[in-house]
């Protein structure tokens, strides 16, 4: 039994190491925020979401503040995107949501551009201004034909 304490120490260290590895995977790499209960749920409607998918990041000034929860088609056949955003941000009601691309061919994300109003967006509310994804075909068409007709909204 005299070697038992060293062995117990090894087992304890092993379990701690394993739990630390799981915690690192979940918290740092998996991005779990503890106590993530009351996320701000916002709705944005777009004519074209391009390659946006559920779990795409939502960013303000390039900093990740939330993610896309769900994408549906609404009654007017527009894309209804439900976002889950950090509730402590204080986004004004005239914040604009735009679909952007990281890099030239990178993943698409939603960029929020805060406005100037004093009132803040509440959970369940909708963005007043949205900007659809850049459509590469339309861009190439515009370049070739020279008619740089602006996009929607």
């Amino acid at each position: 039994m005299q070697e038992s304490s060293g062995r117990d120490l090894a087992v304890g260290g092993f379990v701690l190491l394993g739990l630390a590895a799981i915690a690192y995977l979940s918290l740092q790499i998996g991005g779990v925020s503890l106590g993530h209960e009351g996320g701000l749920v916002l709705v944005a409607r777009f004519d074209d979401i391009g390659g946006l998918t559920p779990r795409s990041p939502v960013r303000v000034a390039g900093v990740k503040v939330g993610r896309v929860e769900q994408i549906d088609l609404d009654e007017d056949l527009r894309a209804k995107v439900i976002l889950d955003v950090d509730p402590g941000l204080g986004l004004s009601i005239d914040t604009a949501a735009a679909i952007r691309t990281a890099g030239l061919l990178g993943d698409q994300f939603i960029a929020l551009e805060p406005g100037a109003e004093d009132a803040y967006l509440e959970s369940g509310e909708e963005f007043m201004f949205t900007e659809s994804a850049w459509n590469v075909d339309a861009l190439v068409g515009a370049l070739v034909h020279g008619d740089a007709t602006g996009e929607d909204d």
Partner: protein
Amino acid sequence: MKAVVGGLGRWVTESIAGLGEMTIFAGRIVRALWVPPARGALIRSALFDSGVLSLALVCASGLTVGFVLGLQLYNTLSRFGAEESLGTAVGLSLIRELGPVLTGLLVAGRAGSATTAEIGAMKATEQLDGLRMMAIDPVHFVVMPRAVALTLVMPLLSAVFVLCGIGGAYLIGVELLGLDSGSYLANLENAIQFREDVLQSLVKSLVFGLLLAWIATWRGFSCAPHAAGVSRATTSTVVTASVCILLADYALTALWAV
């Protein structure tokens, strides 16, 4: 013709009877969990044998797999100018599949076989009967601690394996091939989601641990009580557990995606 049909029938009934015995055995292990005493010292000792002693193997394998993934994926991705996605590709493949599966196979070979051989040798030398003579349930005293240890060890080792792999790919991609360290880690963290990837990985490894614990202890407990029987049971543990882990991996992946 009659012999063929009869043989088939016997094979089917024997298989079903075997499965039934295995299920009853699993029930006995689960019941042993609740029956006092808790056998803490025995569980710790089994954790040492199957966990601590497997750690070096798992770390080394994880690092090597990371090296290979880093090198292979970097070469492929750089053809498309997408080296930055190395973190994404390495992270997803390690966390979702390679981590749990390879750890499962490694632990089956390293600790599962040892468990079977140990229990089988105890049976062959009539130590299990000796325990029964002393009114000690061998399932409670011998099998349960080892089954608990094998099950618990798997998620822990799998997480260590995944981190070693990510580290290995980091060494190759960033230190050796000159990828930007920030983009490797940022892409990795962006691509990995807790519920879809990390939780799936943990559930997988836990299921593999349960399967391995069940198969390894049953094979040892039910082996023929002589040297050849022990050796056959040990081989059978590694083969059956490996195949079951791979099949369960497919099933879990398919279920999770639905």
